[in-house]
């Protein structure tokens, strides 16, 4: 065999338009959903489009109704869109850790909802402890209090997440059925502990003074708190994305989601990274719990288990291990639920399941499944 290798000259072929657009399609679904929501609301205002009319000679004819003006329900649409985006952002905050835990170590954690509920109760406890700050008509004071509540919730749920991983998850690595059973058990124990610490009743909470109001825009009342939730959710998404894309730990996490064994074989202690991700994911769930509690203005021990249905839908349609997919999935779920609840309240119950079915029929591994994942 000759030492001189034949030329192996690579060429860069330009991808076709469809090839270049393909990765962007999931990102286009959110504006498409917003547009579809608008069309749905406008069409409802124009309904029915046809009307039977009696002619002078006694016969019937069908008349096309005048379509409603295009901005007939602009205010409803704006309110619903902001509400859907806010709901989506909160679900994303809760789900982001879960999708990485799923992707990184194939761990199915049904106990994730426990951190949502404990985070909410911890945050609410902080809010109730400082009624002066909550009642102050100062945005700075109100935000400082909410920030303190969020930090406390994240600290408690992060710490509990570390213990949960050590005591409950670690003995069942690689055994999915056992993971489902023990993490559900963990969720039940956590709910009962909430009853022990905070009592059996739900706790109603008023938002801090400056977060109660609403802004008026084009006749639409948009709650200040929802805008804050959208901003915070977006900031958290960008921060997670920056960590994943621009840090070594992020690089290891992205690689680990695709092929954990190879990451280990390259010399990285993936277990240690996983523990870190689990703790961060639990802390984010706790933060999501505080946001959700303030959104609903009530916290219950079962709120985590209840929201987990939406969280799992988001993780599945986003693609296991994909933070971007999780973000888009959460926005789609939030928007769909809000629009459908307005247009046809009864259908809201099944709208998210229908969305999941449609997306899985289109991309069975989710919108943005981690490539090459084993």
């Amino acid at each position, binding site marked *: *065999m*000759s*030492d*001189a*290798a*034949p*030329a*192996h*000259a*690579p060429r*860069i072929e330009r991808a076709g338009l469809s090839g270049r657009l393909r990765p962007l399609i999931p990102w286009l679904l959110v504006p498409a959903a917003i547009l579809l929501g608008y069309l749905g609301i406008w069409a409802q205002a124009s309904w029915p489009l046809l009307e039977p009319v009696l002619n002078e000679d006694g016969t019937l004819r069908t008349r096309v109704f005048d379509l409603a003006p295009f901005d007939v329900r602009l205010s409803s649409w704006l309110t619903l869109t902001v509400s859907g985006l806010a709901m989506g952002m909160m679900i994303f905050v809760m789900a982001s850790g879960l999708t990485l835990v799923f992707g990184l170590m194939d761990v199915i954690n049904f106990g994730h909802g426990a951190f949502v509920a404990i985070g909410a109760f911890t945050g609410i406890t902080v809010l109730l402890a400082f009624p002066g700050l909550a009642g102050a008509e100062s945005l700075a004071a109100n935000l400082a209090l909410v920030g303190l509540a969020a930090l406390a919730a994240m600290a408690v749920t992060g710490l509990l997440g570390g213990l949960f991983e050590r005591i409950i998850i670690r003995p069942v690595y690689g055994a999915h059925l056992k993971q489902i059973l023990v993490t559900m058990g963990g969720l039940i124990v956590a709910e009962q502990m909430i009853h022990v610490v905070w009592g059996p009743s739900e706790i109603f909470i008023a938002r801090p003074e400056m977060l109660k109001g609403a802004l008026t825009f084009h006749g639409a009342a948009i709650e200040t708190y929802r805008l804050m939730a959208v901003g915070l959710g977006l900031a958290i998404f960008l921060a997670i994305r920056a960590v994943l894309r621009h840090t*070594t730990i992020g*690089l*290891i996490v*992205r*690689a680990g989601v*695709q*092929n954990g*064994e*190879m*990451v*280990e*074989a*390259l*010399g*990285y*202690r*993936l277990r240690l990274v996983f523990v870190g991700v689990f703790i961060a994911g639990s802390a984010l769930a706790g933060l999501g719990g505080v946001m959700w509690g303030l959104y609903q203005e009530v916290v219950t021990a079962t709120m985590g288990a209840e929201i987990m249905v939406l969280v799992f839908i988001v993780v599945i349609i986003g693609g296991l291990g994909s933070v971007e997919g999780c973000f888009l999935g959460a926005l789609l779920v939030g928007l769909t639920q809000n629009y459908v609840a307005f247009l046809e309240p009864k259908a809201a119950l099944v709208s998210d399941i229908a969305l999941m079915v449609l997306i899985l029929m289109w991309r069975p591994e989710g919108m943005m499944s*981690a*490539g*090459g994942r084993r």
Partner: protein
Amino acid sequence: MLQGVDLDVPAGEVTMLLGRNGAGKTTTLRTIMGLWKLRQGRIGFAGQELGGMGPSAIARAGIGYVPEEMGIFGDLTVAENMRLGARTRRMRQDRIDWLTAAFPALGTFWHRPAGTLSGGQKQMLSLARVMVEPRQLYLIDEPTKGLAPAVVSVLVGALRQLKSEGATILMVEQNFAVAKALGQNAAVMDDGRTVWSGRMAELAGDAGLQDRLMGLHLEGHR
């Protein structure tokens, strides 16, 4: 299952692990790498006992592994794959220059997702990723499998350079022409055990030995 592997890999030389499909060659590499648990026996490396160590600790001890299925991270760019192999934020420029000269495709597609590379380019990346930092021992599993002759030649050229650096390599290879060109030593496995080991020249020059060890003439794979 391995049941009697007695293998010595001399430092600074290339040892070829040969044998039929299912003989236990890949299992041997994976067990050395700690990806499968060692139940009995011992694996010694540079004065350390590897049995019981995890793959990350074994890698940090100085062993690089190129799996048969390449283990490329398709969503990461070529550069990011290399960075993971280097285990440092700043890769050594002399190594990068060397590798992009040996594998021009990697330089061309440096910022492209590795998943978009061809099979041969992925294999180049898999090999380059482990060569980006000098290792004390390279475990390489069938790097030429299923590749076009032109790509095989590129890989062999790079492995020759690695060999000339005095690297210690244990390589599984089904292509006997490649094995003969690179290997100084050979070990033949069958049914989970080593059935022969010695100098490659001895095996390559004895068609009867090849026939007896594997029931086929390795030269036939040329």
